[in-house]
């Protein structure tokens, strides 16, 4: 292997592709999205309560008082703490008039049979959405519970009945430690690394996509014939994998820097939550799977890309690999509830799904060490095998212009020299 030539190819691939409009757009557009997601995550993790409240307010019906027509007597008079938000009306007509005048946002009509049936008629102007939201509002619930129980139970019990539980999640891992920040923040400790893993996986595909494109273009334009008369196919392949791998890293660095730059003060918050929510083990393993995954996919894409006679045909052929890599995403709904389910564990030992599957599982839960060691071993063994197959296909495929080789011919290529 002539490393100088590998370097020349790598530099050429990098410089050519870094100027591509597609690359620039992708690199510039994704951070915008990433910033949103990450800032969101950072914000939520640090200020879960305020944000929870903020979200609740979004679903509240508004600050205008709500009219009440009470035929049961439980709600008359309105308790002092609710008097600003609720207005009692003597009858239906009076309440309707107030509603139409805009004095109240809606009217709760509590009939005589309320205690037996729970039936409350909600009148509002505009869409029915207000009425639906009202029934889900904590403020309205508290209003009912407090009035029903006022004077009958002690105030502490009354308050608990109005807000029966405030969840503080904790996850027990084998190390015995627990993690938990409560509410939304807790969810985002998973979501940040999950999205980071997602971005890393994206760059794997972006980079290996460029690799596929670069091989197919050289083949389609026939310049490949001159190139392989100057460098060995394995040097060409190594140069492409290295150059486009660095291109993928460039994208990640640009993304990370832009997040850092844009977030300004929030970066501290981000670092705090980020570091807290991504244990060092997950980060380190993430990098390992990233590298192994990229190298494996890149080699496969190069080998298979070389078989197609046009860019389109190469893409179709390489689609098989993208499908395998996407399988863990199809399972992500289940993965969230049980990252260590059997199918996930099995797919972690299959080379084509292992990198993405493990990158998704790692942030979600404590993954058994057998799975970690096993999947890394599988990848380490598959890479030389892929290199052997990929280089052979690459060498022969590069010079087949007229038609795509059949499976039988591919078998022949692998058995013979080429």
């Amino acid at each position: 292997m002539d490393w100088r030539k590998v370097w020349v190819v790598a530099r050429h691939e990098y410089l050519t592709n870094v100027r591509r409009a597609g690359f620039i757009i992708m690199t510039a557009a994704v951070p915008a999205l990433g910033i949103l997601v990450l800032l969101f995550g950072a914000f939520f993790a640090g200020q879960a309560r305020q944000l929870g409240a903020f979200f609740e307010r979004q679903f509240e019906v508004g600050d205008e008082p709500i009219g009440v027509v009470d035929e049961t007597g439980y709600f008359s008079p309105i308790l002092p703490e609710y008097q600003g938000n609720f207005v009692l009306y003597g009858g239906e007509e009076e309440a309707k008039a107030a509603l139409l005048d805009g004095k109240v946002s809606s009217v709760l009509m509590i009939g005589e049979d309320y205690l037996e049936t729970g039936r409350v008629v909600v009148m509002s102007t505009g869409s029915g959405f207000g009425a639906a939201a009202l029934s889900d509002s904590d403020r309205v619930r508290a209003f009912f519970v407090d009035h029903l129980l006022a004077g009958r139970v002690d105030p502490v019990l009354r308050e608990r009945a109005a807000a029966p539980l405030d969840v503080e999640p904790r996850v027990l891992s084998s190390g015995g430690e627990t993690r938990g920040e409560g509410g939304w923040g807790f969810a985002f400790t998973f979501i940040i690394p999950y999205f980071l893993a997602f971005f890393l996986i994206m760059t794997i595909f972006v980079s290996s996509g460029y690799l596929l494109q670069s091989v197919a273009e050289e083949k389609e334009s026939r310049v490949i014939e001159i190139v392989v008369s100057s460098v060995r196919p394995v040097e060409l392949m190594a140069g492409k994998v290295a150059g486009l791998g660095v291109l993928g890293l460039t994208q990640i660095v640009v993304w990370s820097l832009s997040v850092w730059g844009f977030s300004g003060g929030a970066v501290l918050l981000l670092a705090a939550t980020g570091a807290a929510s991504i244990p060092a083990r997950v980060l380190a393993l993430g990098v390992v799977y990233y590298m192994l995954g990229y190298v494996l996919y890149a080699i496969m894409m190069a080998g298979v890309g070389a078989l197609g006679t046009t860019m389109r045909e190469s893409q179709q052929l390489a689609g098989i690999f993208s499908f395998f890599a996407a399988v863990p995403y199809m399972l992500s709904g289940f993965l969230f509830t049980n990252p260590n389910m059997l199918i996930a564990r099995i797919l972690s030992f299959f080379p084509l799904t292992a990198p993405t599957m493990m990158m998704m599982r790692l942030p979600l839960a404590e993954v058994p060490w057998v799975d970690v060691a096993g999947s890394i071993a599988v990848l380490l063994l598959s890479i030389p095998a892929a290199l052997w197959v990929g280089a052979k296909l690459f060498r022969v495929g590069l010079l087949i212009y007229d038609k795509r080789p059949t499976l039988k011919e591919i078998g022949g290529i692998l058995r013979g020299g080429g």
Partner: protein
Amino acid sequence: MVIQVQDLMKRYGDVVAVDGLSFEVERGEMFGLLGPNGAGKTTTIRVIMDIIRPDEGRVMVLGQPPGQAKAQVGYLPEERGLYRNLKVLDTLVYLAELKGVPRPTARERAMHLLERVELEEWASRKVKDLSRGMQQRLQFVASLVHDPEILFLDEPFQGLDPVNVERIKDLMAELHREGKTIVLSTHQMNLVEALCDRILLIDEGQVVLYGPLAEIKRQYAPHAVRVRAPHIPLDLPGVVGVEPDDGAFNLALAEGARPQEVLRALLDRRVEIQAFEVAPVPLEDIFVAAVSGEEAEGRR
């Protein structure tokens, strides 16, 4: 000897592309590699270029295995193309670097070659902006940019207009004078006749004709003379047949008869001779005859 090929064998599945081929190319010569489509020319060249590996046989380029001589060999493939979105100069520099030329030297040489084919003003334009003829000239200099000792040209005149054919021919002649070894593979026999010192004609992967062009032509020359004159007497001694041909006559000679005797007989009869020559045989006819298996025995 700059190239030695010995018992070269290459199969693709059940198809034998090259079947025990042996030949040599000498330093500084213009060597013609000929053969019909599918004869194994491109496969042979690809083996010498180390693009594919032979199944059997031995190939040496400048005394080394092909893989180690890449920097000294230039190649203009039949299947042509360049990086369409790359700039002209960058393309040449990259291709030179792939051959191991340092970047500054590559730039210098590339500019020099662009001037030589009158493309220097296009150096910073993209390849796709060039006309077809310009692209072909660029492709030609791309095979020279690393200053190789041996140059393989596979159908270099394919698709070129007459002006560009002349340009490339001149450039080839210049390179030949500079002492470069050129292996020319083409169908255009007139160009081979005009340019090559020695030829190798292959068919179905095997040698059909191999040696100095002049000798081969002599071997295949028909036993006839070509005379341009108003008329030809029918009873000339040693002449067994007269055929009019495009304002002249082809005179087939009897075995043992010599052209000089025929000329003397014509002068004795006071025939007004405008031209007299030993009938030439176009390389094309030799090619067709050799490939179709006719030994052209009757014409010897």
